């Protein structure tokens, strides 16, 4: 292949080495442990990176410098913050349901970690290509709302409860249009497997060759994704000026950090899913039959393509956050039930017609 040191090559080498030295069962267990460790390390690094990115992006938008003291150009600021959070005491309020209170931050992290499974980071570099990949992602993503409700209710705090109830109403509503937007794309690809969806974009990404329905689906998916991750302008669950910190008001130290981290991981995940569905995941930018052009594009490693697209979309979501005011709870639900859901259903119908008549490339 083009890249000798690709993720795919490393994966294959490790697999071969394990199978050569250990039995197949032991090798499989070792692989699982290795993947688990990788996911945790990846999460930690991603969290640090995204928090730093958010702070820098907000600084640019707000005509200020952002963190620039700890480490070169402030790169170690988020690590220092994490260290501080680790050293802080994780308080459990009196009168809280201790079991649920302590479980909630882990549940939200576990949900975020599980979604990683079918996401393809590079060519043939995926934990497990489940044949119902997209369905799996949207179903696991729903678990996080349970964690948020759990956190809000068990804190024994009215602000937290209000935040959690808002979040519950919001996530459940917006999952509908996010789901319909995903189904619209599945209609085109005719497969739920992430690998198939990416490979179907071999000669052009769906955003370009999927006609108008794909663009509408993309816009709706991005709006719904922002809402699902509880980020501004849909950050009602933790609306600072209304509910102090919403569902995680009572959390401190590392337990708070887990919620914080999960928010950023969820942002990464929804952007990764959007990149896969609409921008071809790790698939380089290909134009139909332009062999030469496509070949040049292939020289850029697939992991760069994937991460590049994902981070562009993350930037978009951060841009939303630092630009828009927050909606009110009834306006938020109006937007979903009166506008987004009907539009996405009509869009689905339109896409069905296009697919049936085979109008796509």
């Amino acid at each position, binding site marked *: 292949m083009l890249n000798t040191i690709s993720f795919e090559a490393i994966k294959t080498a490790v697999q071969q080495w394990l199978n050569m030295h250990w039995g197949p069962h032991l090798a499989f267990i070792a692989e699982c442990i290795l993947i688990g460790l990788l996911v945790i390390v990846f999460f930690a690094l991603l969290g640090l990176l995204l928090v730093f990115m958010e702070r820098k992006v907000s600084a640019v938008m707000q005509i200020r410098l952002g963190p620039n003291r700890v480490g070169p150009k402030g790169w170690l600021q988020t690590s220092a913050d994490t260290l501080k959070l680790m050293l802080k005491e994780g308080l459990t309020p009196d009168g809280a349901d201790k079991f649920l209170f302590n479980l909630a931050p882990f549940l939200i992290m576990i949900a975020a970690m599980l979604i990683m499974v079918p996401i393809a980071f590079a060519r043939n570099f995926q934990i497990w290509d489940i044949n119902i990949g997209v369905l799996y992602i949207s179903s696991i993503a729903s678990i996080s709302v349970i964690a948020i409700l759990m956190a809000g209710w068990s804190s024994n705090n009215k602000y937290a409860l209000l935040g959690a109830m808002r979040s519950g109403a919001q996530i459940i509503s917006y999952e509908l249009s996010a789901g319909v937007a995903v189904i619209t794309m599945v209609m085109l690809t005719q497969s739920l497997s992430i690998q198939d969806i990416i490979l179907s974009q071999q000669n052009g990404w769906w955003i370009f060759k999927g006609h108008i329905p794909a663009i509408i689906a993309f816009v709706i998916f991005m709006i719904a994704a922002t809402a699902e991750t509880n980020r501004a302008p849909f950050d009602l669950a933790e609306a600072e000026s*209304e*509910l102090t910190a919403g569902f995680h008001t009572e959390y401190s130290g590392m337990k708070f950090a887990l919620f914080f981290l999960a928010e950023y991981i969820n942002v990464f995940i929804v952007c990764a899913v959007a990149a896969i569905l609409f921008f071809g995941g790790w698939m380089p930018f290909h134009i139909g039959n332009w062999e030469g052009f496509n070949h040049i594009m292939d020289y850029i490693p697939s992991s760069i393509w994937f991460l590049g697209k994902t981070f562009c979309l993350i930037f978009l979501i951060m841009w939303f956050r630092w630009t828009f005011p927050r909606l009110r709870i009834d306006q938020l639900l109006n937007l979903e039930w009166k506008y987004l859901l009907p539009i996405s259903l009509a869009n689905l119908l339109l896409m069905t017609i296009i697919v049936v008549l085979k109008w796509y490339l």
Partner: protein
Amino acid sequence: MHQVLSSTPEGIFTINVGPQHPATHGVLHLVITLNGETILKIEPHLGYIHRSIEKMCESLTYRQFIYVTSRMDYLSAHINNHACALCVEKGLQVEVPMRAQYIRVIMDELTRLASHELWWGAMAMDVGAFTPFFYAFRERETINEIMEETCGARLTMNYMVPGGVMADIHPQFQQKVKQFIAGYKNKIAEYNELVTGNVIFQNRMKGVGYLSTEDAISYGCSGPVARASGVACDVRKRYPYDVYAQVQFDEIIETAGDSFARYLVRIREMEQSVRIIEQLIDNIPEGDYQAKTKAVLKLPKGEFYQRVETARGELGVYIVSEGGTTPYRIKFRSPGFSNLSALNEMAKGGKIGDLVATMGTLDLVIPDIDR
């Protein structure tokens, strides 16, 4: 589970917003009765930053007590000082030199701009947009620098004294103000582009926190809050003081009475402040900046009242003198207190999100309410 979230069978419960809460911009404490997200009743609890300023003034001389008033509405420090100075001058029957009057009015309007700047940023922050705050502070910083150059301080300026101003303006003052004003007009357009025109923002503000004209009058509201409900109450226009009688400016009145109207009144007031400064800055007459007064001021026996328009509304200073060197009794009529009293009327029946959108447009400064 324990005594979790006590509520009545109908689901009515109370929450305490404040004394420490991001939306109250200070130590205001609101006890809110809620049904789900709908507000049934709001009870403001005051007194967390009460410093007995009125009582303190009784033991300070007429020169000294003005400095304490900078700490009331700290965003309108100049205007508070101005009110006190005018009241004392009324008692002494001192003629203030024209130069001092011009400087005072320019300073008042710069203060109003700075105050509205901060309000605009905080208002946007209340409805969830963080970025405008930094844009507002960029301009506010310039005003603070101009103030610092002439007055020697950035927040509690203590520049106005009975009979005029404490010191002459800095040689660069006029040039710097003109430079600032020239650039500032574009800034207002930028604010409108950033926030006013935003659909989400308008949805949050329009029809929210309605205050009728009758209620505005009966609660004693003043300033932009009352003017947004159609009450013509600009003291600068109705009871002009210093050179306000000679400058051209419009009294901004809206009739919608909702949060968006209050927002628009303040934004358009900024334009009027710019207009006032433009008229005065080039024409500051030569002469004394302070009238000749005795070292120890003594007000004749009697009662004196003076009102001014601060950035928040009408500030009244009431002095009772027994003829000594210190006032016998001082009472301040602060705009924030009356405006806050109408909050229950405005936010009742709305959502929690509406409450912050309403409270933001009241432009509350808690030390002004408590004194």
